[in-house]
């Protein structure tokens, strides 16, 4: 995977697989400290200590269709190659939190990629999950919570063409605005 947004999609799919009702995705570009931080936090079923300690190992997966899971190990290796780290914490019955950090300016750091595309895909593809997306660049912040949108829609599918266009634009504008404001204030 060549963009962090694809890794975010992959990690978020784990949250859905863990039965999460609400997933928070936070992306923070801390430019003064030269760090890029991504947090994915869910209220899914969580993991036992034993599985948690093995989950960053490429030869562990909870999936039954195939025995090798590479999502988290790949992301961990990518972070460690960029003066960063990956931290996974979990409580059974409460949820799981993944935090991954990179040196923002590191030459090997993957680009963030298409964040709007990732969030749109998750919101549309898993409509029963409440998705909250927070994007910070410096002091600028964009928050997207799909709950008010779904409440307003009252059962109309998110794939209704005009609604789809609306959400896509909302994400694109918000992300672009945060990037513009955050970098302007540097």
């Amino acid at each position, binding site marked *: *995977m060549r963009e962090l947004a*694809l890794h975010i*999609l*992959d990690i978020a*799919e784990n949250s*859905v*697989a863990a039965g999460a009702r609400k997933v928070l995705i936070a992306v923070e570009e801390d430019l003064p400290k030269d760090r890029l931080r991504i947090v994915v936090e869910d209220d899914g079923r969580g993991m036992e200590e034993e599985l948690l300690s093995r989950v960053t190992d490429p030869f562990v997966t909870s*999936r039954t*269709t*195939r025995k090798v*899971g*590479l*999502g988290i190990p790949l992301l961990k290796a990518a972070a460690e190659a960029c003066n960063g780290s990956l931290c996974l914490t979990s409580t059974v019955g409460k949820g799981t939190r993944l935090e991954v950090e990179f040196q923002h300016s590191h030459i090997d750091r993957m680009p963030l990629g*298409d964040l709007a*595309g*990732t969030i*749109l*895909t*998750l919101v*549309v*593809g*898993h*409509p029963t999950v409440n998705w909250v997306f927070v994007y910070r660049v410096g002091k600028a912040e964009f928050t997207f919570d799909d709950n*008010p*949108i779904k409440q*307003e*829609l*009252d059962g*109309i*599918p998110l*794939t*209704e*063409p*005009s*609604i*789809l*266009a*609306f959400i*896509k*634009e*909302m994400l694109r*504008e*918000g992300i672009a*605005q945060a990037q513009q404001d955050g970098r302007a204030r540097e």
Partner: protein
Amino acid sequence: MPAIKSLEELKRLKEEALKKREAMRTSGRVQITVAMGTTGIAAGARETMKAILEVIEQENLSDVIVRQTGNIGLDSWEPIVEVVVGDEPKVTYGKVSAERAKRIMKEHVMGGKVVSEYVIPS
């Protein structure tokens, strides 16, 4: 710089969608599922999903539901897309690039004709 999208605008879109929905209550539903496991994502499933959503938007297709699912155990065929039109049996497509997805949308979802060359042989 355009104003950030407001809930007011969403309300207006909802009213319009409701009216349209009333008008087409009789037409069949289409359910599309995109496999979004690690292998699917690495093979380009997000771009496939985006292409499907783009066609829905461009062609103004109401009554199409798009969902995503985890790995379905056919890794060498990723990205995988399943299409169910009305009461017809499920069709499973393999190696669905964004381009192929657009063709499936036009020929199968809109035209009603299965794109047999992309169907995973069982």
